[in-house]
Structures are given as structure tokens and as C-alpha cells.
């Protein structure tokens, strides 16, 4: 098992390097350079020449690339002059806020998705089944920012039930349990928007695999042995139906982050989304590369986790 994990992680390294190269090239080849974000406008030619030299922006591309790769291989992902801190620090600093949205949304959508899947699997291919499918598909078809704005208008503005923006009330500056409650209140609307988004693929796959599993031989065997219906469902069917669900969650990591970015924009949630957007506008290459690498790591890790979960859920699967 350990050898398997080690091998997978080793395989990920060239992938990460490729992503690092790609993001560097993207920013470097894109029109516009970071000098204005760093140095401000209204300067004259001599001023910008001086600034370019200071930040090493006047050195040839090849030289900058070599320096960049050297740093990356040493684990140094760059320094953001705009934020005056190492890029990794900035990115990891904003990660918890984004996870605070994605985590609960994931849990909720998995729970609801499974429930919907069970509901639909009771009578496959009936109108009721299609209705459930359509409802969950609707969630996937709605642009998440449109939904977020809708929620904002109805619940925060019209009904005034929830706050409009941010992660906590700055005036209150609540600590401890009161602080946690404050954050929870702010989380409700963005998490709802994301949950609706994540729901569809999970419900769809849960339904499909449940139908599949329920038709399997070992289920018939269990029934023939006289086992109770709920036991059949819980112990055997659900466990095995979970496998594809887990896969689909693992495959959705990138999709989840993009949904989070859009939701964060609408609710001014201080997470990774805004960091990326402002970094791109300022051509802050250190931050953009770090974020892409972080995402890639997340995808690699989640795929690995999925495979390990497979082994845990299905005793027939063993890795060498």
C-alpha cells in the first residue's frame, strides 16, 4: 500500500513541474507587464526603466525562466511584491476561507445527493425518476453566480434574513462561540449556492450506481438468504454504490474551486477567488503560479484519496 502511494506521488512530480512551466510561460507571454501594478501610473520613461531594472523585468526571458525553475525546484514559489509576502504564504493564508465554503457544501450535497439518488433508484426510468434527475440537473445548469445573486437579493435584501457580504461582521468583531456563530450566519447563502451546484453530478451518479448495484447477483443472493431489505440496502448496496460517487467527487475538485471563486466574488468572501483575480490583473506571476500548483496538488491528492477510499470500501480491491 505504501509503495502504491509513494509511486503515485512520484508520478505527480513531473505533472507539477509541467504546470509550473505552463503558468510561467502564460504570464510571461501575455501582453502587459507587472510594472504598472508595482510602480504606479503617471511615471516617466526613466522612472519605469529604473523600476524594471529593480525587479529584474528587463532581463531576457531565458534567464528569468532559468531563475524561476531553479527557485521552484528548491521549493520557493516566489515573492509577491504587491502583497509583500511569499506567494505560498498568501495563498495558504486564504485557503481556509475557501475551504470553509467548499467543505460544508460538499458534505451537504453528498448527503442530499445520496438521498435523492435513493429516491430515484426506487423506480428507475419512471416519471418520478426523471423529475429527480431534472431537479438535480437544474442545479448544475444554473450559473452559480446568477444563483448567488438571486439568493442575495431574496434572502439578504428583501427578507433581510442574512448578511449581504463578508465572512464576519467587522463592527462586532465577535470572538469565540459568538464569532463562530457570526461566521456561520455569513456562510449560509454562499454555501447554499455551492450546494445546489455540486448536487447534480452526485445525485445522478448515486442513482445510476444504485440501480446498477441493486440488479447485481450478490444482492439477489442476500435477498434469497432472507436478509432484511434495509440491511440489503445499507450494508451491501449503498457501500458499493458509494464507489462511483466518491470518484465523481474526486473528479470535481477543479469544478468546485471555480464555483467557489464565483460565489466569493458575489459575497465578498475573502478566499482564494479574489486573490487569483487581483493577482492576474496585476500580473503577479508568483501568486498565479502558486494557485495553479495548489489546485493541481489538490486534484492529485483527491484522486489518490479516491483510490484509497476505493480500497477501503471494496475489500476486493488491493493495491500492490
Amino acid at each position, binding site marked *: 500500500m505504501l509503495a502504491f502511494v509513494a509511486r503515485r506521488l512520484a508520478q505527480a512530480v513531473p505533472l507539477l513541474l509541467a504546470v509550473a512551466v505552463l503558468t510561467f510561460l502564460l504570464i510571461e507571454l501575455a501582453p502587459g507587464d507587472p510594472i504598472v501594478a508595482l510602480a504606479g501610473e503617471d511615471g516617466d520613461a526613466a522612472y*519605469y526603466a529604473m523600476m524594471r531594472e529593480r525587479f529584474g523585468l528587463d532581463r531576457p526571458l531565458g534567464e528569468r525562466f532559468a531563475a524561476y525553475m531553479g527557485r521552484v525546484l528548491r521549493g520557493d514559489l516566489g515573492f509577491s511584491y504587491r502583497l509583500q509576502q511569499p506567494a505560498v504564504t498568501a495563498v495558504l493564508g486564504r485557503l481556509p476561507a475557501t475551504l470553509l465554503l467548499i467543505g460544508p457544501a460538499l458534505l451537504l450535497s453528498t448527503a442530499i445527493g445520496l438521498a435523492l439518488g435513493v429516491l430515484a433508484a426506487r423506480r428507475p426510468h419512471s416519471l418520478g425518476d426523471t423529475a429527480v434527475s431534472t431537479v438535480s440537473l437544474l442545479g448544475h445548469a444554473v450559473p452559480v453566480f446568477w444563483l448567488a445573486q438571486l439568493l442575495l437579493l431574496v434572502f439578504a435584501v428583501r427578507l433581510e434574513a442574512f448578511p449581504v457580504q463578508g465572512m464576519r461582521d467587522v463592527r462586532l468583531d465577535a470572538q469565540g462561540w459568538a464569532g463562530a456563530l457570526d461566521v456561520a450566519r455569513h456562510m449560509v447563502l454562499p454555501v447554499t449556492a455551492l450546494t445546489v451546484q455540486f448536487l447534480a453530478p452526485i445525485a445522478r451518479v448515486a442513482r445510476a450506481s444504485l440501480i446498477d448495484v441493486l440488479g447485481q447477483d450478490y444482492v439477489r443472493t442476500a435477498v434469497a438468504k432472507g436478509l432484511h431489505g434495509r440491511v440489503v440496502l445499507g450494508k451491501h448496496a449503498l457501500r458499493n454504490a458509494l464507489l462511483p460517487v466518491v470518484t465523481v467527487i474526486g473528479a470535481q475538485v477543479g469544478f468546485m474551486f471555480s464555483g467557489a471563486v464565483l460565489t466569493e466574488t458575489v459575497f465578498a468572501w475573502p478566499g482564494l477567488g479574489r486573490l487569483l483575480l487581483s493577482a492576474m490583473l496585476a500580473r503577479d506571476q508568483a501568486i498565479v503560479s502558486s494557485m495553479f500548483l495548489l489546485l493541481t496538488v489538490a486534484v492529485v491528492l483527491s484522486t489518490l484519496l479516491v483510490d484509497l477510499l476505493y480500497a477501503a470500501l471494496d475489500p476486493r480491491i488491493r493495491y500492490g
Partner: protein
Amino acid sequence: MNHAATRRSHLPQRVLLPLVALALLGAPALAQDALGNENPGHEAPKRGGTLVIGIGQNPGHLNPAISTGSEVHAVADSLFNGLVGLDDQANPYPDLARAWEVSDDARRYTFHLHAGVRWHDGEPFTSADVAFTFQQVLLRYHARTRTGLAGRLERIETPDDLTVTFVFREPYAPFLQQLNVTEAPILPRHVYASVADVQNAPENLAPVGTGPYRFVEYVVDDRVVLARNDDYFKPGLPYLDRLVFRVIPDANTRLLALERGEVDFIGGLPAGELDRVDALPEVTVFTPNSGSGGGFCVMTMSFNLERERFADPRVRQAFAHAIDRQQVLDQVLFGRGRVASGPIHSQLAFAYSDDVRAYPFDPALAESLLDEAGHPRGADGTRFAATFLHFPAFAKYGEVLRQNLAQVGVQLELVALDRAAFISRVFEQRDFDTNVISYCNNSDPAIGVARVYVSSNIGNIPFSNAAAYVNPEVDRLFAEAASQADVAERGRLYAEVQRLLVDELPVLWLVETQFSAAGRAEVRGLAPWSGSPAEAAWIAR
């Protein structure tokens, strides 16, 4: 003592102090306090409370002397002071300097500093700080100060701890307009003198200033928290306990937060919402001429004069007659602003002149001009296509212009580019037919206007002479106006240059824009045109 070089003389010390005392003691409270801020209820200011300001961008770092970025100044200006402050008409009033003298030839400016001013860490403020900030920081890293002063300033004298004299090589009239906290904030010498690299110092994230508020906390992309400076040198100020800046990037969300009371003040509202918000009793709307990033701005459409088609003045005039600037004002700015007549903002009274050629909205005339210039309509009705480069935020201008120009057979192709790409394509590659830029006059034409039209400013210099316009007469007029001491003479020179520019039409001036800001009605004493809007703010409950 006071000189014509300042457009409006500052109140001498003996008149100012009692006024301030009067305003603060609350006995016959004035409709406006000493800083010119609103006090409609004629109430006495209450101490205490937290003011939350919603800002649109993360500040990045908090050193206002090394950057002209509005996002830095929106926050950092509240931590520092300049030698003078500027009101909404760009007239100077005392800040760190309690009084000043200007020599008759406008070559020597002497400032007398307040005594007993302390930095947030307790160290005394002296003239050495001023000299250090200018020589080691501003003249090196602050784009506007460096560009405006570097060649002109001969030396800075500090005869004693409370006196600073600036000596210029030749007369320089607009100096006072470049000395507020946004243009020339004063940094502490004892903190920065030993710093190896001012642009990359941890001190920039935990700043020490002389300002009304001192630094408490900065959470990137989330908030900046400041607390009252109890030793602030202006007696009685500030009133608030805490000042918090909350980063809310989406303009709609920011406005919603204000309406719901989650923030107390925001700078910049979507133009379409101004009327609705103005009608709300719980919110006050301001439309100052300047903000934390500049002031007195004119939306300008530049033509690329290096392209043959636009080198022909008839084509440019045709554009001027084809574009309905009133429609732009109505549909893009919802009436908030003014149709522009030339390069200088109408609120800069001493320099503005409307004695210039007019280009009324006349599509028929535009069509005949285009025909005359050799661009007849083709079989499909189009004469030619032209690119129009703009920031995504200015897309609406492009849409109205596209509508107008389509009527006369010109197909405008909109190209939305973010700031860095825009600068690269317009100023570095010069790959455009037309573009739109918000050129800000910035309190004096010598600072913000000259750079757009002088021939020395053509090239890879952001927001300079995009049209590549060359006219030695214009160069001469601008140079002379900057080095003139007499205000009337400066006005005459600027009138002359406006006439010339509007005649030649290297660019087309669309509209003068206003800044917009809004605050909760119970907040008084705000100065929305200033980088430090909450210096004298208080909350009425």
C-alpha cells in the same frame, strides 16, 4: 506674506485656531467645520464609535509614498499627513505645515511646521523627516512627484527642526497642489533611514505615521483595522475610536452592504444607482471632484495620429460631430457630470476656458466630412472599421460610441483589455485606432494635463501622450504656464493652449466625470474628496 501664487490664500494662524476651537467646543457650532466638512445638523461632534469603510480592492501594502495606486491610498492616507491638505476645489489648507510663504518669483517655498507633532511610536516629527521623505523616497518612487519635481527641485533646506524650504531652479507655480497626503505623504525618517529597500520592507505592512489613526491590524483581502491616534496634533481630532476598511470587490455588493448598514461609507457607486440611493433617507450621496486616486477627470478618446486615416483632421472632426456627448452623459453617467469642452476640467476655475471651438452633434455634417476625406460608404453601408481599446470598466462608453458611429457608417470594434495589457498595447506597441482613457487633471493642469499633450511624453509611458501629438507651440505654452508665478498670466496661457488643442483635436474630450461616494446619514464630518476621509468624521446617534 500670502502670495498670488496660491490660488486662494490660507487663513493665517491667528484666524484659524480660534475657528477650530469654536467648531470643536460646539458653542455656536458652524454649518461647516474648519476643514470645510458638512455639518448640516449644526450639532456638536460626539466622540467614539467605529466607522467601517468599504473599499473595492485589497491595498497590497500600506506605504503611500512609494505608490500612486488608489487602492493603497484609500487606506494608507488615513495613517499619514502631508504638508498641506486640499479641499474639494483643490485649495490648500494647513496640515503638517501651519503656515507658509512663497517667494515673489515662486522659486522658494518655506513651510513652518507644527510643533509637538509625534509619530505613532512616540518619536518627535521634525523637518528632517520631510527632507528625508522627499529626497530618499518621493523623488525616487512616487511616480507623480518624481516626474513633476525631479528636474525642477534644486535643493531642500532645513534651517531648524520646524522649518523646511524648497528651492526650485525656475519658478514653479503648482507646487502647493502636490503636497497633500495623497501626493506627498511624509514618512518617518527614524523608521525608514535604516531600511535597505523601501519598496520591499516589512515596515510597509505595519506603518508608523503622524496621521489621525494608527495601525492595528491588516488581514490581506479582508480588512485593515486602525485605531484613534490619541496624540494627534490637531486638537480634538479624531472623534472615532476605530476605523475599519473592509475589502468588498463587487460594486453591487458594496452598495448593498452600505444600504444594510454593514458598512458606513463607500467611495464609488454604480452610476445607474446614484439617483435611487440619493433618495434613500438613511444614505447621503456625495459627488466630489476628486477621490483617493486622482481628481478632476475627463474621459478622453485618443486617436492614433500615426495612422494615416486619423492623421486627417476631417476624420477626427467627423467623429466629434458623429458622437452625441449628451447621450454619453445621460446613458453612461446618468447625468452625473458634464459634457467636456476641452482638456481642462471646468472646476479648475483659474485655468478653464470655454472660449474654444464647438463640435455640436451633427451626424449629417459628420457624413459629409467623411465623404470629403475620401471614405465613402461601401456596398454594405460601412465606410471603414476602427478599433476602440478600453478598460472593461469603460465598456459602456464604447457601446454608446458604437451606436453613434454606426449611424454614420463607421464600424467600431471594441477591444476590452485589462490595465497591464492596455498599457502594453497602447503605449508600447501603439497598436490601436482609438481608445478611451480617463485623464485626470489632478488639481493643477501642470500636473495632469501637460503630460498628455507635450511631445516629450510619447513612448512607453503609461497614460501619457497616447495620440503621439506633436506641436512645439503647445509644448512651449505648457512649459511657460508651469513656471509662471502670476495666476492671471497662467490662466491666459492655459486659455490659449485650450483654444489650440480644441482646434487641432488630437483627441476628443467626451465628458467630465464626477467621483461618487455615499455614507450613512448619521455619519458627519466626512471629507469624501480626500484620501483621508474620516479625519474629522463622527457618528451622530
